């Protein structure tokens, strides 16, 4: 086990960066989720760590050992792919034993480990069957088992491993994975484009967009304090409301009405947060803002975008004037659609709460310029 450190690592297949040069450390023993839309470079980043891909630039370190040019087999990394990859003519048992036998584990230990993984993943009764006779979901579980069977791996990389598994089993397997993580203390990096999966699984969620890490933090941090418009959109259901606003004389205005005072937050990277070293703008660790106004600094006048999560929009008798255009009753909560100054706005309220009222207030609103958070709205 080791910290995995990327230094100025970047990769391009064509002229464009698939992974923009970044410096980043995966701490030993943590469970990470790497979250982002399709094509944002998640898999590329994973393959760089496992050595299936040599980055166009930069170095990869496991603790202090430079492994940039070490082939995959020499890195002690386990990786599980999106679709089942099996040795089809082998039995399930031999599939699970294969990575161990290749590494010359003693016969007795092979047997122990295979049986332990099989019982964890519920494969005991299938051990004697040919792998290719299983259904796709089970095959994927066998692939997963091959990733988990080895000891002392630097990290287990999981590339959307539950895509083909049916939804009911997904929950079970995800909690199994957490359990295994607790027991073995392996570093896990779990790639997904599904926020629920990421948020329920990980100690730390790393959000990737266009080949760059835009924010990382606990699920709570990403929800309460998005440092980038993309995090606002991507995390949360529905995503963050974005409204065009203007800052004039330190006041935030939407269509002429004042919604509060603008308070600047330190630019990302300026504070020495752990893991947020290096290339300006490429890595942002978003702490939950401390006591308001303590770190307030002026924001230059001009257009900004105001972001507020639907959970923090309050309907009522005071505030911005708004017009309710529709209500979706989703059982657990209501989604109220409204219009403010000609822009759509969604509010999430408890069922049974009054949806009337001509005004909205924002409880927790942030200001973005060029997609990056520059400040928040204070009373």
């Amino acid at each position, binding site marked *: 086990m080791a910290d995995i450190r990327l230094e100025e690592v970047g990769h391009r297949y064509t002229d464009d960066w698939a992974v923009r040069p970044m410096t980043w450390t995966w701490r030993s023993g943590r469970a990470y989720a790497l979250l982002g839309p399709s094509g944002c470079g998640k898999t590329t980043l994973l*393959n760089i760590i*496992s*050595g*299936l891909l040599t980055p166009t630039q930069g170095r990869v370190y496991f603790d202090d050992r430079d492994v940039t040019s070490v*082939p*995959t*087999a020499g890195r002690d*990394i*386990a*990786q599980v*792919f*999106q*679709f089942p*990859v099996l*040795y*089809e*003519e*082998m039995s399930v048992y031999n599939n699970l034993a*294969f*990575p161990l036998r*290749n*590494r010359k584990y003693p016969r007795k230990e092979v047997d122990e480990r295979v049986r332990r993984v099989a019982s964890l993943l519920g494969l005991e009764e299938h051990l004697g069957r040919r792998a290719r006779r299983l259904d796709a979901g089970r095959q994927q579980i066998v*692939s997963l088992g*091959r*990733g988990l069977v080895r000891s002392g791996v630097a990290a287990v990389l999981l590339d959307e491993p539950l895509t083909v598994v049916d939804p009911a089993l997904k929950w079970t397997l995800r909690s199994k994975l957490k359990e295994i993580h607790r027991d073995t203390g392996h570093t896990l990096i779990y790639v997904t484009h599904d926020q629920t999966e990421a948020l329920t699984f990980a100690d730390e969620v790393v959000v990737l967009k266009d080949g760059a890490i835009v924010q990382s933090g606990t699920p709570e941090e990403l929800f309460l304090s998005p440092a980038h418009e993309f995090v606002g959109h991507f995390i949360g259901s529905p995503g963050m409301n974005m409204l065009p606003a203007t800052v004039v004389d330190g006041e935030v205005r939407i269509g002429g009405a004042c919604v509060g005072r603008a308070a600047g937050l330190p630019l990302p990277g300026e504070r020495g947060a752990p893991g947020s070293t290096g290339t300006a703008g490429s890595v942002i660790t978003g702490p939950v803002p401390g006591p308001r106004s303590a770190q307030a600094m002026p924001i230059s006048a001009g257009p900004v975008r105001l972001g507020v999560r639907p959970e923090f929009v309050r309907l009522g008798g005071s505030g911005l004037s708004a017009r309710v255009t529709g209500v979706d009753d989703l059982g657990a909560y209501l989604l109220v659609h409204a219009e403010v100054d000609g822009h759509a706005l969604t509010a999430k309220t408890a069922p049974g709460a009054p949806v009337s009222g001509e005004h909205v207030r924002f409880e927790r609103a942030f200001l973005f310029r060029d997609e990056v958070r520059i400040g928040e709205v204070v009373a």
Partner: protein
Amino acid sequence: MSDGRQKHNRAWWLVLPVVVSVAFTAIIPLMTVVNYSVQDIFSPFDRIFVGLDWFRDVARDPEVRGALVRTLIFSAQVLLIEIPLGVLIAVCMPRRGWTVSVALVLVALPLLIPWNVVGTIWQIFARGDIGLGGWAVNKVVNFNYTLDSADAWITVLAMDVWHWTPLVVLLAYAGLRSIPDPYFQAAQIDGASAWATFRHIQLPRLRGVLTIAILLRFMDSFMIYTEPFVVTGGGPGNATSFLSILLSKIAVGQFDLGPAGAFSLLYFLIVQIVCYVFFTVLTRSGR
């Protein structure tokens, strides 16, 4: 219900063109051969029904038996050399980049040459006096395919390997290319050696194409005619006289249509049986 049956019956008319053309090109000619094989024909008006006499004669003929054994050995050697060699070359071929096209063209070249031209090329190439190959081998060991049976056999075998291994290479290469990258990546992750990767990933996924390759190479080599006919004419003696060469000698050379018909049918039967056995064994072993 009866409506549906009516429709199904009408559909048979659509099959008719195929039935007619197959009848004209295959069934009727084959029946003609069957007709010859049970009669002794002196002239169109003077013929005797002889039953299975010709079959008995042909099956007992030592010349036919000798040719059958030679042909079986030849086919076995062809399969034992060409299949592993073809797979080996396919595995070593590049997977991407401009070298792929170069390698494919080079490999496919022998397949583009007409069979009798292949025969002519090797007839000259293997000659000890003016052929490059024969001359070179002669420097090491004494080699003359027109006089020595073993030399003639080796020449014909080498020619077949040269001519037809590319087919196996192309089939195997296509099979290998169809294996998705994650399989090789998983093998790297699992620390598999090159041999283990071949044995557990590539070979199992080649089963389909190799079945086809084995069947094609068996049938083709078992029926080989043109090339040995051009190079050795079946000689020296009868060292390279395979079934097809003997058959054409009986049918066209001696015009013995009765024995030739019986011979053809037995020949046909052997090919069918061996192919059936190969196919069954190869597909069963995969289950």
